[in-house]
């Protein structure tokens, strides 16, 4: 049975929500009352429930299986965190209540900020960014604000080739030109090339560490020193922070700003694409420029600094309608409390252990472009698939039929046919062993070359076969419309 669109199911006269009768009053809509129909379908509650239950059953999820999606940190999402986010006095409070009536909420945000500062070794944190990319924007804006406060005009920002696509996009939105730094043969940023590009017009560097090849940038202290010596700031993309929790702190590495994806490292659920949350830790140099609002603790309890004035006079502004992703803060703090200092460190160790276990388990069948241990994700290229007619994409689609979500493909761009596998610390050894076995089987099958259709026609057992993405983009259909229109 196929699931029709919700718009194909309604019958006028049905209702999914009972509502009381409105009071009889004289409308005060300024003569602008709606006249026509909107076109929304009318359904009963059971119909709506069934519709979404059926839709959900067409999704893969971490709860149902392994999700080795590199750079995305798909880990276990504890249910106590969901429960906490819905507790009375947490899920149901309004952002503009008098501060005296939300002391618990402010205390919670403050405590989460303190944890983030301790974990990163940084003196300040901006809580309001709504996602990783939003956090990058926050960090780079703080850099620019700091330069401007010193009266300096800097125009370039250095970004390694292997960076997440949001890095250059963010730099551009802050008015910077992006200058790309090549990688060395060992997968790290080329320090010499980096040094050569530094100059008085360089605002800073944006570096992901561990980087998108799953490697720790071992020159990071030198990079920090060099950029600071050149008067620039060091933005660290924290997307891969999971790998180093409790083993090192950005504050010890010379970082000036780093966003933290609460939905990756601290396990707030991905939710099919959001919401995220991307607090940004800041060095002393950048802290005065942090966006409003933020929570301040003083003798009278907690209060919100909401305006660009007083202590926040140098703030670069406001990034979000209200104070931040409170729902995500609650979940992240519950997650941190649950792990504690010991558990947080263990997260990083097990995540890195798992990635290396996969790296070693597959390295004789899939080529690793860079030698040595990796951090929390293992990167392979497609060289062993050469001349088989089977691509990285084909392998990924065949994985679906084996019950897995595919790994990240074709990223980072610096590696040909990249396959980036991030198992996270949540998975058992048994799961990794099964996965390694399956991947070895698939690569073997590809290399024997006797069943090319097996790959080209994968996936077979998913709710849909391969979809025509080109057709979708060429003539986009972005909404349902009643028959006979358009």
């Amino acid at each position, binding site marked *: 049975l196929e699931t029709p669109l919700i718009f194909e199911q309604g019958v006028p006269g049905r209702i999914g929500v009972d509502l009381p009768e409105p009071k009889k009053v004289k409308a*005060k809509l300024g003569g602008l009352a709606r006249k026509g129909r909107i076109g929304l379908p*009318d359904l009963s509650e059971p119909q709506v429930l069934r519709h979404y239950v059926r839709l959900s059953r067409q999704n893969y999820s971490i709860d149902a299986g392994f999700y080795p999606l590199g750079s995305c940190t798909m880990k276990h999402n504890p249910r106590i965190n969901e429960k*906490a986010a819905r507790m009375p006095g947490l899920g149901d409070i*309004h952002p503009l209540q008098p501060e005296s009536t939300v002391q618990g909420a402010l205390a919670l945000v403050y405590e989460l900020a303190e944890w983030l500062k301790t974990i990163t070794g940084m003196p300040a944190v901006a809580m309001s960014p709504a996602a990783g990319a939003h956090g990058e924007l926050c960090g780079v804006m703080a850099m620019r604000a700091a330069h401007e406060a010193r009266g300096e005009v800097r125009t370039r920002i250095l970004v390694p080739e292997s960076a997440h696509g949001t890095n250059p996009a963010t730099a551009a939105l802050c008015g910077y030109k992006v200058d790309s730094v090549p990688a060395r043969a060992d997968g790290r940023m080329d320090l010499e090339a980096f040094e050569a590009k530094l100059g008085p017009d360089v605002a800073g560097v944006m570096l992901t560490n561990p980087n998108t090849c799953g490697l720790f940038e071992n020159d990071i202290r030198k990079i920090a020193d060099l950029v600071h010596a050149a008067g620039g700031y060091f933005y660290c993309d924290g997307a891969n922070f999971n790998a180093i929790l409790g083993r090192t702190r950005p504050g010890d590495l010379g970082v000036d700003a780093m966003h933290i994806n609460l939905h990756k490292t601290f396990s707030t659920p991905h939710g099919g694409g959001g919401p995220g*949350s991307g607090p940004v830790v800041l060095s002393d140099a950048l802290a005065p420029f942090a966006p409003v609002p933020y929570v301040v603790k003083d003798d009278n309890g907690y209060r919100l600094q909401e305006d660009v004035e007083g202590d926040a006079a140098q703030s670069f502004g406001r990034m979000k309608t209200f104070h931040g992703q409170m729902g995500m803060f609650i979940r992240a703090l519950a997650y941190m409390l649950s792990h504690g200092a010991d558990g947080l460190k263990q997260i990083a160790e097990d995540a890195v252990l798992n990635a290396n276990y996969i790296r070693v388990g597959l390295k004789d069948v899939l080529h690793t472009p860079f030698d040595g241990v990796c951090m929390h994700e293992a990167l392979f290229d497609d060289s062993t698939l050469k001349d088989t007619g089977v691509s990285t994409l084909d392998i990924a689609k065949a994985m679906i039929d084996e019950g897995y979500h595919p790994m990240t493909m074709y990223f980072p761009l610096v590696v040909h046919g990249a396959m980036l596998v991030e198992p996270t610390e949540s998975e058992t050894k048994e799961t990794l062993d099964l996965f390694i076995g399956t991947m070895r089987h698939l690569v073997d099958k590809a290399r024997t070359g006797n069943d090319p259709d097996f790959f080209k026609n994968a996936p077979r057992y998913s709710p849909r076969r391969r979809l025509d993405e080109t057709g979708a983009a060429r003539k986009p259909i972005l909404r349902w419309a009643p028959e006979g229109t358009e």
Partner: protein
Amino acid sequence: MRYLPHTDDERRAMLEAIGVGSVDDLFTDIPEEARLNGLLDLPGHATEMEVDARMRAFGAENLSPAAAPSFLGAGAYRHHVPSVVDHLIQRSEFLTAYTPYQPEISQGTLQALFEFQTQVAMITGMDVANASMYDGATSCAEAVLMACRVTRRKHAILSGNLHPHYRDVTRTTLQYTEFSVEETDVDPQGKTDIPEIGKDIACVVVQNPDFFGRIQDLTALAERCHEAGALLVVVVTEVVSLGAMMSPGEMGADIVVGEGQSIGVPLSFGGPYVGLLATRQKFVRQMPGRLCGETVDQEGKRGFVLTLSTREQHIRREKATSNICTNAGLCSLAFSIHMSLLGEAGFTKLAEINHAAAVAAAEEIDGIEGVSVLNDSFFNEFTVALPVPAEKVVSQLADQGILGGVPVSRLVPSQKDLENLLLVTVTETNSSDDVAKLVAALKEVI
């Protein structure tokens, strides 16, 4: 630790398989001087029982609007969300799925997004909508960037009666770009008009109902914009109003942005919410954010995919039109489920109930000696002029367990002339008894 499956034996076996002696050998790339020895200065791991108690304690120190007559609005609105909504978004397959980049195993999320886009387009009276943004204010900023791209112009006019935070976020977002904004005066009387629209203006941004609750007919403004080659961006912070009012699309808007929180999303102290962005068909390729499109699979069955991603930063990198990457996924799902439950009949009736309740309450409040309601027109939120500063009144009401509204001065602290103004919102969650309590308390404190 309950979330971490490995036993020490397993760790040893795995290290051996990897060929290293200890887990420290996996971290040798970290410069020695930056390595952390020992543990972070934080407490050890806590049991679920402890975490539960701790979180409950944080909650207990707040006054929940569920436990108090509550009249707060100003961009975030308390509505009843049917329990089926929260049940459904907690299903593993929605909650713990990633962005649907693998469409074969993500049709649930994708179809829901396609339906969301359609619903948003319908209620705003536009052709198409994206799959959601962070929140209303970030949508607003993105709309201005989009208008600049569409018109290839560099300046935007923001109405002073646009929600102050939306103005702040837009200004902040644009400050380091080549684009700039100008703002008209804040005017609770709603008499200030948009100035002349020059040839350098990419768009005019107005809110309807505006920050003070007033409803305007924007048809003439839309015509002025179009004559000047600019776009009209209409902001809606209370999306329920669209059930009662002529849509921005009908008035001629080119881009409609808004906050979708009212439908399906809990207040949650300000986030996560769900930003809406809808526009005309012809501007599709300039839209920011994710888009889901219909297509077919190998067997010709209808299916859905993320599409037009060539606009996105993982393809275009520094040429990307925005750095927006995630959307409000689960919140847009909640919105869509709630909207499906309401349907045409429910959504319009919900709006009617809100309006009627607010009109009735406004009359009662206007009847208090020394107090007046400024608005001639409004949806479910209106501005009350008090004889004393609103901030103080709100604080006194809070002491009595009443969340009496939002003082305008909290959002526009710089203007002394507005300090007696109070924004009051009345929704279907407010009983007549709530209103009576507010009126009685107001009489007492002023």
